[in-house]
C-alpha cells in the first residue's frame, strides 16, 4: 500500500489530524474515519450530489475530492450546520415544507441550498432549480425542496422595515 500522508483540517469548526492513504476520498475520510455519516454516497460519478459538503466556503462533491487535497482546509458537513439544538433556517424550512421523504439526498441538498443562499439571498424558482441541479432526489419530485429553499430564503433575509418599526 502507498505510504500514508499526514493531513490536518478543520471539520465543523474543530481541528483534526489524520494519517491517510493518498487515494482516500474526502467522503470516506468524513464518513469512515471521522465518523460523520450525514454525508452520503449515492453514485460513483459525481452526479448525484448526496456527498455535497462545504470546503473552504464552496459546496463540493466530496466523492470527487481526495482527503489530501483538503489538507489545511475547512470543511462544513451537515452535522455542523445546526447550532446545538437549534436547526439552521434551511433545515427548519425543509422540515416545514416536507422537503424530504427518505432523507438520503437531504444533507447534500441542504448544503447546496446553503451555498445558493449565501450567493443569492433572493433566488427565483428557476434559479433554485438550477442551483440544485447537481443534486438528485428520487423521492420528492423537487417541488417541496424548491418551496423549502424559497421559505428559507425568506427567513434568512434581514428583517423588513415594518418589523423593525415594531421593535
Amino acid at each position, binding site marked *: 500500500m502507498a505510504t500514508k500522508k499526514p493531513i490536518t483540517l478543520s471539520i465543523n469548526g474543530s481541528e483534526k489530524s489524520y494519517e491517510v492513504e493518498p487515494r482516500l476520498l474526502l467522503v470516506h475520510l468524513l464518513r469512515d474515519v471521522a465518523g460523520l455519516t450525514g454525508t452520503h454516497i449515492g453514485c460513483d460519478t459525481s452526479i448525484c450530489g448526496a456527498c455535497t459538503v462545504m470546503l473552504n466556503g464552496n459546496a463540493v462533491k466530496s466523492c470527487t475530492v481526495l482527503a489530501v487535497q483538503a489538507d489545511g482546509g475547512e470543511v462544513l458537513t451537515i452535522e455542523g450546520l445546526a447550532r446545538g439544538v437549534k436547526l439552521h433556517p434551511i433545515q427548519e424550512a425543509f422540515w416545514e415544507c416536507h422537503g424530504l421523504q427518505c432523507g438520503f439526498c437531504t444533507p447534500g441538498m441542504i448544503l447546496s441550498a446553503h451555498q445558493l443562499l449565501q450567493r443569492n439571498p433572493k433566488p427565483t424558482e428557476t434559479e433554485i432549480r438550477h442551483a440544485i441541479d447537481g443534486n438528485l432526489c*428520487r423521492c420528492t419530485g423537487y417541488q417541496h425542496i424548491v418551496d423549502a429553499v424559497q421559505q428559507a430564503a425568506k427567513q434568512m433575509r434581514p428583517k423588513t422595515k415594518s418589523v423593525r418599526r415594531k421593535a
Partner: protein
Amino acid sequence: MPVSKLVGAKVKRREDPSLIRGVGEYVDDVKLPGILHAAILRSPHAHAKINRIAVGAARQLAGVVAVYTGAELKNRIGTLPTTADNPTLRIPDHRALAVDKTCYVGEPVAAVVAEDRYTARDGVDLIEVDYEPLPAVTDPEKALTAASPVIHAQWPDNLAFRWQQERGNVAGAFKQADKIVKQRLVHQRLAPIAMETRGVLANYSDTQGLCVWTSTQIPHLVKGHLANLLKLPETRVRVIAPEVGGGFGSKLNVYAEEPLLAFLALELKRPVKWIEERRENIQATIHGRGQVGEVEAAVKKDGRVLALRYNVIADIGAYHQLFTPAIPPFTGLMLSGCYKIPAIGIAVRAAFTNKMSTDAYRGAGRPEATYVIERLMDRVARELKLDPVKVRQRNFPKPAEFPFKTATGLVYDSGNYELALSKALKLVGYDKLRAEQKRARGKGRYLGIGVSTYVEICAMGPGFWEYGKVDVKADGKVKVYSGASPHGQGQKTSFAQIVADQLGVDFDDVEVLHGDTGTVAKGMGTFGSRATAVGGIAIYHAAEEVKKKAQELAAQLLEAATEDVVFSDDKFIVKGVPRKGMTIQQIARQAAAANLASEISADSTFEPSNFTFPFGTHICVVEIEPETGQIEIKKYLAVDDCGKVINPLLADGQVQGGIAQGLGQALYEAVVYDDNGQLTTGSLMDYAVPRAADLPRFQLAHTETPTPVNPLGIKGIGEAGTIGSTPAVVSAVIDALAPLGVSHLDMPLTPQKIWRACQASTAAKKRVRK
C-alpha cells in the same frame, strides 16, 4: 368512522429532525467493532462459461481475509426465491454467486472480504477468471425465436412462463366493430435508482444468532428467506431495515448479496458489510417495465370500445427475482383501465434474456397497463376524429355501477371517474387550451395536450396481510409497532396521527416502531401502496381493541358495569356521570398501580377482502421546438382520488415524486443494453434521472371517494403519480406532433427522437411536393 383531529391534518413529519441533521442511520452508517468489508467481482460478459477462477493473488493480498467463488458456495447457500403460482413457470437455479456460467453483465462471480473497503476492491482486481463468451440475446422478441441463443439449456425456447385469459365474447365484438384500432407499444426497461444503493451488514454471534441490517422494504420476508437459504431456525435470525434511502420496489426482493453476506458473517464470525456502488446498482438491482406488446381494439363509431386484445412479451432477464413472474399478469389484469370494456383477451409470454431481472418498480404492471389503454384511447379518438376526452367519458362506468366488475376479473371498489376528469378539465381550462392550440398551430407552433385518466390497484389483498400492535404503557407512553416497513413514506407520523386520534392521546406521546424483526412480531412490508391502506388499518384495529380493554379496566376502576362505560371526548366516562372520566393514559397508570394490568396492549392482523382502486386524471401541456426537438412542459395538473387522506402533506409529496418518475419514463429514462448484452447506461452519467430544472411545478388537486373495503376509507397513493403521468406526457407530445402526421413514438421521447420525427416529416413533405 372516528372523529378526527389529526387525521386529515398537515402534520409535520417526526422522521425529519434526525434526517435533516444528518444523524439518521442508514445501513452504511451502522458501526460495529471489528467490521470487515466485502466487494463483489461481477461478470463483464452477458453470457459466458466460467472455465476457471484464480483467486490466489487476491487471497495473498495483505488485508484480505477471505475470497469465495460460486463453486465453494454452491452447496452452502440455497437458490434465490421467487413466487411460483403459475403452472407454466420455469425457474432456473439462481445462485448467490454464479457457478459455471454467467447470464448477464453484473452477475456476481466471486466475493472478497477485507479489513477495509479499498483493500476489498483491490482484491477483486486481482482475481482472474477464464471466461468463454457465448452468444447473447437481449431482445425479448428475438429470444423467443428458434434462431436465438439459449440461456438455460433445459428450456431451449427461452420461455420463462405464459399467462393468458379471455373473458367476454372477444371474437364476436371484433365482428361487430365499426373499426379496429391497433398499436404496438414498447415499455422500455427502467432503473429504479433509489438514491441510497443497496447495502447489507451481517453479524453472527453464538448467543444472539444472525443479525442482518439490509436496505430493504421487507425485513420480515427477508428474515424468513434467509433462514431458509442458510438452513437456520427462524428464531436465530433477525433482520433490521434501518433508515432506507428509497426503494420504489427495487428493495422489495431477496437479493444474492443478502444470503451471501449472511454466509460470510457466519463463516468468518465477524461483522461483514457490503455497500453497493451505483454501477453495481444499475447492473444488478432489479429493473422495471420491459414489455413489448400489440394492442387491438374493436370500437364503435361513437368511440365505445367493445373489446380488447393484447399480446405482450415480457423481458424478464436471466433469472426470476422475488416477484418477477407476478408483474406481467398484473398488467393483464389492469388492462381494462377505468373503462367499461365488455370483452378482453390477454396473452403474456415471458422471455429469458441476458440481462438483469425485471421486477416490481413503482406501480409494477399498472403503469404498463395504463400506458397501453390510454395510448389506445388516444388512437381511437384520432382515428374516429373525436376529442380524446369524449372517448374516455363514453367508456367510463357510472358511479352507481360500483362495485364494478371488469372483464379481466377485478372488482373495482368505488369510483367516480367522471368527477375527477371534469375537475381536471375545469382547473386546466381545457376548452380554452384547445382553442389556443388551434391558434398556435395556425402560427406553426407545436402545442400538445395530453389527458390520461387512470385507475390503479393498491393495498394488495387478499393474501397480503399486515400486522400492527398498540401498547399503552403504565407511564402513559403509547408504542405502536408495524410490520409495514416504510422507507420515506412517513408512516411514523401518519400512524401516530391515527392512533392519537383513536385513543384521544397527545400525538407526542405516541411512538411508532418498524423495520426490525426483533421488535415487531411479524409483517410483510411496504410495497404496492399498502403501508397505510393495510398497515394503517391493522393499527387502527389494534387501537380499537386497546380501547375495549381500557373500557373494561375503566369499569373496574370506576366501579361501573363495562357496558356503562363509554368513550367520549377523549375520555372513558360512566354513562350519565360525565364528571367521572378517565383518559386511557390515566387508566393505564391506575390499572398498573392497582395491579390490574401492567399495560394495555393489543395486536391485530388485517387482510383486506379486496384491493382498493384509486384513480384520477392527469393533464400535461407541452410545446415542442421542432428545430431542436426540445420539449417544454408548460403545465402539469393532477387530480387524484385516493379515498381518505391521513396527511395531505405526505400524500402530495408522494404524488409529486411519483409524477417525476413517470415523467422520467416518458422523456428521459431507459436502461439500454447493446446487442452483445453490454449495459450502455451503466452509470448516472448515461442513465438520465430527472433533475430539478427538468421538471415543472405540478399543480395538484383531489377528489375524495372513500373505499368501502376498510374502515378508514383509505385507498393508497404511492404509485398513482407514476401511473397517471407517463401516458399524459406521451400523449401531449404526440398531440403536439400531430400536424406532422406523427401518430406514435416509443419512449423515452428524447429531443433527438423528436427532432428525427420532425425532420422525417419535413423530408416527407418535401418529397410529396416534388
